[in-house]
Each structure stands twice: as C-alpha cells, then as structure tokens.
C-alpha cells in the first residue's frame, strides 16, 4: 500500500511541476517579470517533490490511523495548508535586485495550489 501511495505522490509531484513550469513560462511572456532567481526549474521540481512526498507520507499515516476518514481529513488538511501558504508569497521580501515584486504573488500563489490539485 505504501509503495502505491508513494508512487502517487511522485506522479502528483510530476504533474504539479509540469503545470507550474508551464504557468511560469506563460506568466513570464505575459508580464515580462523575471522571478527566475526565486522560481525556476530547480525550485519548482524540488518544491513539488518535497510537498507531494511529505503529503504522501501524511496521507499514508492518516489512512492507516483513521481508515475511511483518513482521506477526508487529509484532503481537508491539504486544502487548508495550501490556503494558509498563500501568505508566504504575499508577505515575503524578495532580493532588491528583483524587479516588479508587485507581480510576484500573481506567479507564486497559483503554483502553491498545484500540488493539492494534482
């Protein structure tokens, strides 16, 4: 069972990373705001893997512990956590050489939800 959940976590990470990379490119072409110093292939793939693998572990634990309700609780926790994480790109201070920090939340906020959606 853990193997299957872990594999699903990896698959979700891959899907979230692909969606984030595509969105990152579209956002750059639309706004010409370059945030590659913070959000780039490495940070997207690494972040997606980290979040989805951790989520897979939590999911495994909850399903094992709470059986049927585990999935519901997991979805609830993942959604709430994703919403709470919206505060990170809004409140973070970027390096001063990054231009147009006003546009950073527009890029980062949707990306935060990609792991949960995946």
């Amino acid at each position, binding site marked *: 069972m853990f193997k299957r959940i872990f594999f699903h976590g990896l698959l979700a990470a891959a899907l979230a990373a692909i969606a984030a990379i595509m969105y990152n490119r579209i956002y750059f072409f639309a706004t010409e705001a370059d945030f590659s110093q913070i959000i780039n292939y490495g940070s997207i793939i690494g972040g997606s893997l980290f979040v989805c693998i951790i989520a897979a572990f939590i999911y495994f634990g909850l399903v094992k512990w709470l059986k049927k309700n585990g999935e519901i609780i997991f979805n609830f926790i993942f959604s709430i956590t994703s919403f709470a994480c919206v505060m990170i790109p809004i*409140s973070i201070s970027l*390096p*001063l050489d990054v231009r147009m*920090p006003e546009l950073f*939340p527009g890029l980062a906020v949707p990306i935060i939800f990609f792991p949960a959606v995946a």
Partner: protein
Amino acid sequence: MAAIALLIASAFTVIKSQDWKISDNYAIKFDGGDPSGEFKDLTGNISFNPNDLATSKFDVSIDVASINTGNGMKNTHAKSDKWFDAEKYPTIKFTSSAITKTATGYAAAGTLDMHGVQKPVVIPFTFANNVFSGSFEVNRMDYNINTAEPNHGGQKFKVDVTVPVTK
C-alpha cells in the same frame, strides 16, 4: 618675463568645483529592520572639489515612487498617503549649504526635504575613486511620516548612500 606673468596669473587662479555626473550603479539603501529597501531613481547636480569645498554643492533628489522594499504590498503601502504620500510629495530632496572637511572624510550640512517637511541635516561622507559614500540616520517621526502609528515598523532608518560619479 614669462615666469613673472605666470606667477601673476597663478595668484589670480580661481579653483572651481568639479561637476560630476551620477553613474547608473548608485545605491540608496535604507534599513529600519522591517521594512528595509532602497530607492531607485536619483537625479541632481553634484559639484565637488576636495580642494575647494566652499564652492562645492549637492543638490539631489530621489523619486519617492521608486521605493523598493522587495515586497509589492509594502511598496504600495510606502507610497500611499499613510506613509510617504508619493502623489503629494513625489520627491525627497537634499540641498547642501556647506561642505566641510572632517577627520574621516567630509560632512555635508544642508536641508533634507521629505514628506513636505524641511529639516537641517548633516551627512558625513567620503569621496574615493570617484565614489561618494555616506551614511546617516533619519527618524520618520521628524518628517511626519505615519505619526499615527509610531510603532508600526521602525522609526529610525539608517540610510546608506553610494554614488559613483564620472566627470
């Protein structure tokens, strides 16, 4: 005869201050803990000659709207009427009235015009390799900047100015 003429001419030589152009890679950084950041747009006239401080003068201004704290939300707040009110007071201006030599470099005494308030300030600075470097402290309360919230962010800000110049 020529030597005498040269001697007489040199006696009447007037040392004039050198006008300097501000190079692009200048930095005006401020640090009040939170927030900290920089201003991007500096313009003005710099006339400086270490051998003739009496005619040396700084007349520079900063575009308030060019403030960058690294955070879009803070930038918007900083420009709003609650803080700098960039629409009503679009520039921060420093005009020197006297430049003197000090033990560590120079000191420019003058008026800092910010948020509609003019205050006398003394900015210590150095000049080496065509770069002006100065550091001084500004208390936002002295300039009536968001006096309603004295504990919102810092009150005292350390300002570090580095301005490379060319002839």
